[in-house]
Structure formats: structure tokens, C-alpha cells
């Protein structure tokens, strides 16, 4: 913060020198002063990290409400377990591969085991707050991304294979993509270098997970029995939606890496896009089916949040209205593809995250402005092209790698539970638990259906 002015006065008189002295001691010396922690930026980054962590349980609820009761715990666990698996990997190797100095395609190993990732600021990523805060903030993104895929493969994928899948995927798909887009230490990431804009993860998070979801769904095949696959608990889905919306303020707002005007701008456009997209989904549905649904609201809100994500640090409020208004009709129709093309993307991860994320990445190129963020770009055909390149790379890379990982797992561990286990439900067959052990109002509350041993 104090570097700029200090640099400008080095040629002035004694007087100015005095002033310079008056601020901090290290200005006197010749060596560049150690960066200083700004408590406000730190507070905002820690708060944002907590908010983004919360998004994973929120996603669990959002998804959980939509599956059948017999699979509720499995659905929740597929999000929660990502909090564990990805964290351990990230600390050991993931953060280094994503953010340490390396090649344009993947980071190096200098930050392995978080060596050198300390409590002081780090010039490239965390100029005014502890480097570890950046590490943990980015970890939260790394957690939710594979968890997003779980909605697509719901109600049939083996839990053990899923755990192995997200572990490999996190290293093989997520970290290189994150590096290409966000890697700035030393050699810039390939897409960063090209000038692709992705403020908070349109390509890294949503395109990658949405495309991978589609690939996995094709490898897995359809669920056995979908004669009635209505959501078992839509209020749960709405709680999840509310918490996702809340957490997304950290996801996009925190991506400013500071508590400043840009953070506020990202916060504001995030809210506007979510609100507008929820409304536009409800309207589309109202027209199509004569009834505005709660699930439609939830779907629209999430679609809006997805689409604004890459744009959130580069566009203004009018652009946010546009993105919100456009994304819902697009995703609404994308979802219809699945009955036409015959793949069973249980909770429409491709339709919402894959399509919504791609749309957001592209629209960023048409709506971005340096008036919002001087380190961004102004809308142009060129920028649109760069955005398309970024999206294309994310699509291609995720699709190919996920296909390879999924195929290997299919022939080794197997991807699906048995048909019997699927009919019984994954809670009982995979976890030996029931989500709701009791029937009845609980007035005398005795569950009639079990015995202890």
C-alpha cells in the first residue's frame, strides 16, 4: 500500500523525505520492506474462505433435497467427503501444483507440503494478507469443484470409486486448470498469459465440473428405476440454495483478494445476477407450464450464480442484469437435451454448470469493462475469442482427462453399485444407515422398525 507513493518521491527534497520517514521505518532503508498485513483485507479473505467452505454443505443440501430419500445420505456424503479428501491432497501437493512457480500448464513443487507458505503476505497472490489465507481460500474452491460432479452421478455411483475418482480428478484435472487460469507466480499460466478472464472460476470450477459430469454420466449409464424420481425434500433444496447464495458472496467477492471497491462490485453483480436469473427461470416456467416452481427458482438462482462467476470482477450492474436474464432460458432448454439425447444427468450438472459456466465465460468477453477493473479488459471480438479459447481448453481438457480416469476406474474398481443395491438405496447398501430412521410424527415417537443388538 505504501510502495507506490514512496517510489514517486525518491527524487524529491528533504521535506518530502521527512514525510516519508514519518510513515514507516523501513522506508529509510534500501532493501524492499516486507509486505505488511492489512487487517481489513485479512478479515475479508478469512470471512470469504469461511463462506466458500460453507458452500459445500450447502451444495450437499441443494442436491440432497432433489434425490430420493433412500439416497439422501449418500448424496450428502459425496459432497462432505470432498472436504476431507481434497483438503489432505491440497495441503500435500495440490496447492503447489496449482499456484507455485512452474510451467504454463502446471505449477511446480516448491510449495509441496505447504513449505514456504507462511503467515506473511505473498507478493503475487496475497499482497496484503497472509499467504496461508490465500492457500485456504483457494482450497475451498478446490473442494467444491469435484463435489459439483456428484449431482450428475447421483443415485448409482459406488462410493469407494467416487472417492478415488475425486482424488485423482482433483490433481489431474483441477490443479492444472487452476494453474493455467490463475497461476501468476513466475511463469504465468497459459490462459492467464493469453488474457483469458475468469474472475472466480467459470472455467476452472463450472465448466470443468459440468463437462466432467457429462462424461461420467455417459460412462455410468442410466439409473435402473426412474419411474418416480421426484425430489424427496424440496425445502432442503431451498435451504441449500439460500446458503449457496450467501456463500457465493465469498466465492466472487473474495476473488478480489482485497477488501475494496472491486470486492464490493463482485459482491453486487453476484447478487444481481442470481436474483435476475431466479426470476427469469420462474418466468420461463410460468409461461411453459403455467406454474412457477420452487425448484425452478432454486435452479435459476444457481444458474445465475454460475454464469456471473467468471464475469464478476469485470462487469457492472447492467451486465449482471443481462447475464442473469439470459442464463436461465439457456439452461432451462439445455436441461431438456437430456431427455432428447438420453443421458441420465441426475441433477443436471451439465445443464446448469457446464452450459451456464460456458455461457458466463463467453458473455464475460462481451460485457467486460476496464472501468470496473483496470487489470481486466474491455469487451471486444478479440476478448470474446480469448474467452472462447479458455472455455474450449477447459472443455477439451476436462472431457479427455475425465474420460480416461472414468474409463480406467470402470474396468478396475467398477463405477456402479449393483442393481439390487440401487433399488434398495445407496444409504443402506453403501453406508449401512438410514437418513430418516423413523416414520410418524414422533408424538410417542417410537420407531417400530428396528432392534438393537
Amino acid at each position, binding site marked *: 500500500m505504501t510502495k507506490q507513493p514512496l517510489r514517486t518521491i525518491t527524487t524529491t527534497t528533504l521535506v518530502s523525505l521527512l514525510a516519508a520517514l514519518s510513515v514507516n521505518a523501513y522506508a529509510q532503508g534500501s532493501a524492499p520492506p516486507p509486505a505488511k498485513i492489512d487487517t481489513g483485507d485479512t478479515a475479508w479473505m478469512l470471512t470469504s474462505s469461511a463462506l466458500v467452505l460453507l458452500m459445500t454443505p450447502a451444495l450437499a443440501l441443494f442436491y440432497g433435497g432433489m434425490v430420493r430419500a433412500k439416497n439422501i445420505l449418500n448424496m450428502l456424503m459425496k459432497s462432505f467427503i470432498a472436504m476431507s479428501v481434497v483438503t489432505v491432497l491440497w495441503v500435500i501437493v495440490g496447492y503447489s501444483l496449482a499456484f507455485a512457480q512452474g510451467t504454463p500448464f502446471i505449477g511446480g513443487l516448491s510449495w509441496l507440503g505447504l513449505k514456504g507458505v507462511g503467515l506473511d503476505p505473498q507478493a503475487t497472490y496475497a499482497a496484503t494478507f497472509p499467504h496461508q489465507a490465500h492457500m485456504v481460500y483457494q482450497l475451498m474452491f478446490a473442494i467444491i469443484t469435484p463435489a459439483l460432479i456428484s449431482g450428475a452421478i447421483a443415485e448409482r455411483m459406488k462410493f469407494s470409486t467416487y472417492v478415488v475418482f475425486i482424488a485423482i480428478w482433483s490433481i489431474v484435472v483441477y490443479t492444472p486448470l487452476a494453474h493455467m487460469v490463475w497461476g501468476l507466480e513466475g511463469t504465468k499460466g497459459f490462459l492467464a498469459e493469453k488474457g483469458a478472464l475468469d474472475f472466480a472460476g467459470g472455467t476452472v470450477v463450472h465448466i470443468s465440473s459440468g463437462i466432467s459430469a457429462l462424461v461420467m454420466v455417459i460412462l455410468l449409464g442410466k439409473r435402473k428405476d426412474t419411474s*418416480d424420481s*421426484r*425430489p424427496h425434500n424440496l425445502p432442503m433444496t431451498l435451504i441449500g440454495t439460500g446458503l449457496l447464495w450467501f456463500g457465493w458472496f465469498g466465492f466472487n467477492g473474495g476473488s478480489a483478494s482485497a477488501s475494496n471497491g472491486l470486492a464490493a462490485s463482485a459482491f453486487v453483480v453476484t447478487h444481481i445476477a442470481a436474483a435476475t436469473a431466479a426470476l427469469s427461470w420462474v418466468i420461463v*416456467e410460468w409461461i*411453459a*407450464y403455467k*406454474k412457477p*416452481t420452487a*425448484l*425452478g427458482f432454486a*435452479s435459476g438462482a444457481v444458474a445465475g450464480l454460475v454464469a456471473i462467476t467468471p464475469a464478476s470482477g469485470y462487469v457492472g450492474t447492467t451486465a449482471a442484469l443481462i447475464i442473469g436474464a439470459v442464463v436461465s432460458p439457456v439452461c*432451462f432448454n439445455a*436441461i*431438456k437435451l437430456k*431427455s432428447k439425447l438420453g443421458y441420465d444427468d441426475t441433477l*443436471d450438472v451439465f445443464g446448469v454448470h457446464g452450459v451456464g459456466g460456458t455461457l458466463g465465460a463467453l458473455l464475460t468477453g462481451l460485457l467486460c469493462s476496464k472501468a470496473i477493473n483496470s487489470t481486466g479488459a474491455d469487451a471486444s471480438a478479440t476478448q470474446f475469442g480469448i474467452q472462447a479459447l479458455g472455455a474450449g481448453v477447459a472443455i477439451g481438457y476436462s472431457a479427455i482427462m475425465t474420460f480416461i480416469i472414468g474409463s480406467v476406474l470402470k474396468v478396475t474398481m467398477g463405477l456402479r453399485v449393483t442393481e439390487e443395491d440401487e433399488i434398495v438405496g445407496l444409504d443402506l447398501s453403501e453406508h449401512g444407515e438410514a437418513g430418516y430412521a423413523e416414520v410418524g410424527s414422533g408424538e410417542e415417537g417410537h420407531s417400530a422398525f428396528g432392534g438393537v443388538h
Partner: protein
Amino acid sequence: MIKVEALIRPQKLEDVKSALADLGIKGMTVTEVRGAGKQKGYTQHYRGAEYTVNLLQKVKVEIVVKDEDAHALAKAIAEAARTGEVGDGKIFLIPVAEVIRIRTGEEGDIAIS
């Protein structure tokens, strides 16, 4: 003895209970069930997938009474549960061979008095 088994609209249960109280009948067993019949169902949409729900919420009321009381009881329930619209439900009279009161082991009419 006879088991009077009435399938009624949920919102009519209170009226039926009052009618039973008027007849001095206290004992009954109630179950939540779903019924199909002439009454038409509802359409639901979930992200565009359409579901038709034609099993509608009903309540089953079961009352075991002496043979001679059964018909009058059924009539009273029918009256209390009627709205006149399709979907009001049915009453079945089912023969019961024997009744035992668990608390006392009593059998026969006395067990349900």
C-alpha cells in the same frame, strides 16, 4: 362383530369424529392412506419432467362394532364425510370373528365396549 372401514377425505376426519362422539363411540383406529378412483389427480413439474399423481391422500378409519350397530354407524359416517364431490370415498363392512382386549384379555363384545 363387524369392522366398519371408511375411506374418507382427510379434511373430513374432524366431522366424522364428531359424528362418532354423538353416537357415543370412542374407539377407532386411523391410518393415512392413498386412494385412486374416479377423482382426478394432479400434475407436477420438476425441471420440466412431468408427473401425474393419481393416488390422493385419504384417511382410513376403522371401527369394530357389534353386528347390529354396523349399518347405522356406516350411515352416520357417510353422512358426516360427504361433500357430494367425486372422491368422498367408500365404506366397507368386514366380518370380524373375534375380538380381544389386550389389557384384560377379555374377548367378545365386552372387549370393544
